[in-house]
């Protein structure tokens, strides 16, 4: 394969991978921006959405209504976790919030392991057959699902940007994320805004989950862990507080993962994650708030 074609194919791979990471990271960043909470349960929201879709398929409803119901379910679950688990610990130190989300995550996972079996299930029954194809152009192939993923990521990113700049709720969210106390002072209803952020973030998780499962072809109760970890890394690298940062970090991560394997000798393929985490630690030391994050440190 000529080198240009190789480069092109790996770039396509990286874009596809980066896009799915971006979808996961955006939802995570939404919640973090508002509450400074790293939601460990984000991956599990993805998982629940996938299982909801999986079980709904047998009722025979069409694909689009299925998606809508699934996203609704994800949003509801997200709001429920906020109300029950996160609101009581609002304002607590970082560590406590981290532990709370960890606890919620472990709980949801174990419930699903017990109720649904731990054995992975095929997601093909949900994915429409039309998404199964592959397009080849000048020797470079890209599957329809990946095209869809890139498209959805771009569209949702634009929609979200419009949401946080043009709508009342969205602007209120930005206000809260910038200055919680100030937002309260100007009369923003904190509870409602935070619930809205969770709803949107969880719906995003639902979208990300369904596309992730469609790409991979299978679901299982612990499937949310890896995407969570990747989104984590992406958001830290790009800048945790902002949507743009999360997306940028996701693409950086996607390109790093693909290019490390693609351009280093095969013997080093298994070191990929080590390189990625070294990059993460490097970013944390040099620019702790991420590439797009602010450079200011916490002040008195």
């Amino acid at each position, binding site marked *: *394969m000529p080198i240009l*074609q*190789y480069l092109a*194919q*790996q770039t396509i*791979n990286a874009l*596809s*991978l980066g896009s799915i990471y971006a979808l996961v990271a955006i939802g995570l960043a939404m919640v973090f921006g508002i509450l400074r909470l790293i939601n460990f349960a984000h991956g599990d929201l993805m998982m629940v959405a996938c299982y909801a879709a999986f079980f709904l398929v047998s009722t025979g409803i069409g694909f689009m209504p299925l998606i809508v119901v699934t996203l609704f379910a994800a949003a509801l679950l997200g709001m429920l976790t906020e109300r029950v688990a996160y609101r009581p610990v609002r304002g607590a130190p970082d560590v406590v919030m981290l532990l709370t989300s960890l606890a919620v995550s472990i709980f949801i996972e174990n419930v699903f*392991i017990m109720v649904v*079996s*731990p*054995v*992975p*299930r*095929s*997601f*093909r029954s949900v994915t429409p057959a039309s998404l*199964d194809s*592959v397009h*080849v152009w000048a020797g470079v*192939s890209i*599957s329809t699902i990946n095209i869809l993923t890139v498209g959805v990521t771009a569209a949702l990113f634009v929609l979200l940007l419009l949401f946080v700049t043009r709508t009342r709720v969205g602007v209120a969210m930005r206000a809260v994320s910038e200055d919680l106390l100030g937002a309260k002072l100007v009369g923003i209803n904190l509870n409602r805004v935070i619930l809205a952020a969770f709803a949107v973030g969880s719906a995003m998780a639902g979208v990300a989950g369904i596309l*992730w499962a469609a*790409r*991979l*072809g*299978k679901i*299982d109760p612990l499937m949310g862990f*890896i995407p969570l970890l990747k989104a984590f890394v992406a958001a830290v690298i790009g800048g945790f507080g902002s949507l743009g940062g999360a997306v940028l970090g996701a693409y950086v991560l996607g390109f790093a*993962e*693909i*290019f490390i*394997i*693609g351009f280093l000798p*095969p013997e080093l*393929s*298994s070191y*990929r*994650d080590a390189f990625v985490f070294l990059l993460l630690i490097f970013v944390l030391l040099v620019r702790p708030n991420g590439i797009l994050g602010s450079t200011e440190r916490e002040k008195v």
Partner: protein
Amino acid sequence: MKRSVIFALVLITALVAGSASLAAADTIKIGGTYNLTGDMASLDVPAANGSKLAVKQINAAGGVLGRQIQFVLYDGKTDSATNGNIATQLVNSDKVVAIVGNTDSDSALAIGPIAQAAGIPYLTAGATSPQLPSQVGDEMFLEPFGDNVQAAAGAEFAVNTLKGKTAWLFWDKGAEYTTLLSKYFKARYAELGGKIVLEDTYTQGDTDFSAQITRLKAMTPQPAILYVAALQASDAGAIAKQIRDASITLPMVGGDGYDGPELVGVGGKGAENVFFSTHSLMDAKNGDAKMKSFIAAYNKEYGHDPESAFAALGYDAVYLMADAIKRAGSVSSKAIRDALAATKGFLGVTGAVTYQPGQRIPQKTVTIVAIKNGVYTLGALVVPQKVPAP
């Protein structure tokens, strides 16, 4: 205060429950060690189901030596410390006379030494590392063939049937089974004159293989076959799918890790032209009488067909153990172990088991399954001519 009440209640319930599993008089207690939760669940749950079915059938037919079998099944949770705990519990508290279980070598190594130290024979249903008997000791027996056997069979099938003298080797670096399988494949394949033109790895948990697959695609000339050592059927299915998405139609060969409905379930059309070595084909139409009755019984008990050969392995392991107890004529663990070691021609659903003197891994025929039109069909039955040393 409320917390303490909740804790106390849970503790009391647990205590009651724990003490309630007493032995009924005059039964033969056989321990069952399976990872019903955790990463190995997809292989262990069918195997455990097979074992439980066998116990039920044996007891319905009158038991062994006139006594019923009590199958004490614990969940190892795919955690080595927990596996050690359940082994200790079975050996010391439940006082079982023999242990049957597990489909992975990690867990077998956590349980084996404890059984060995206590002189309790331990027959693994599906762990295939050929080093197990030498690592654990003379109480350790394997019901299935070893990985060196199935890798050799895979290599011979690739060269002789698929006529593939060049290969891409892709394996999971994060698991013991796949590390061993690829090592044995390399050895036998080279002996047969095969050449591995590109070797690449991934790690357990990876979901995207596009970078390595693209590297494969860039090879000129393309290898004749792909040997992919994957731990589970869903991994194999995902890899097959992504390979086909890259327009690579070469035959893909693997080991018994592929055995499971998720290979086609996840791989879809991508699972075409995929072959794997396993213990037997769950063939309700063309299988022999034993296979057909096993499938029917499994279906009746659990409401669906056996998921994979591991169900049959769990079933055979219990029957083999019961047969050994019968031949021993007693429930002394030593007698059972000796009878087990002398097994010749025991016919199970997955084939005949014979332990050569001093060997505790059976010589069994390897079944190569071929996926054609989404159906698991019989590709070949291979007895390897030469097997790499463990």
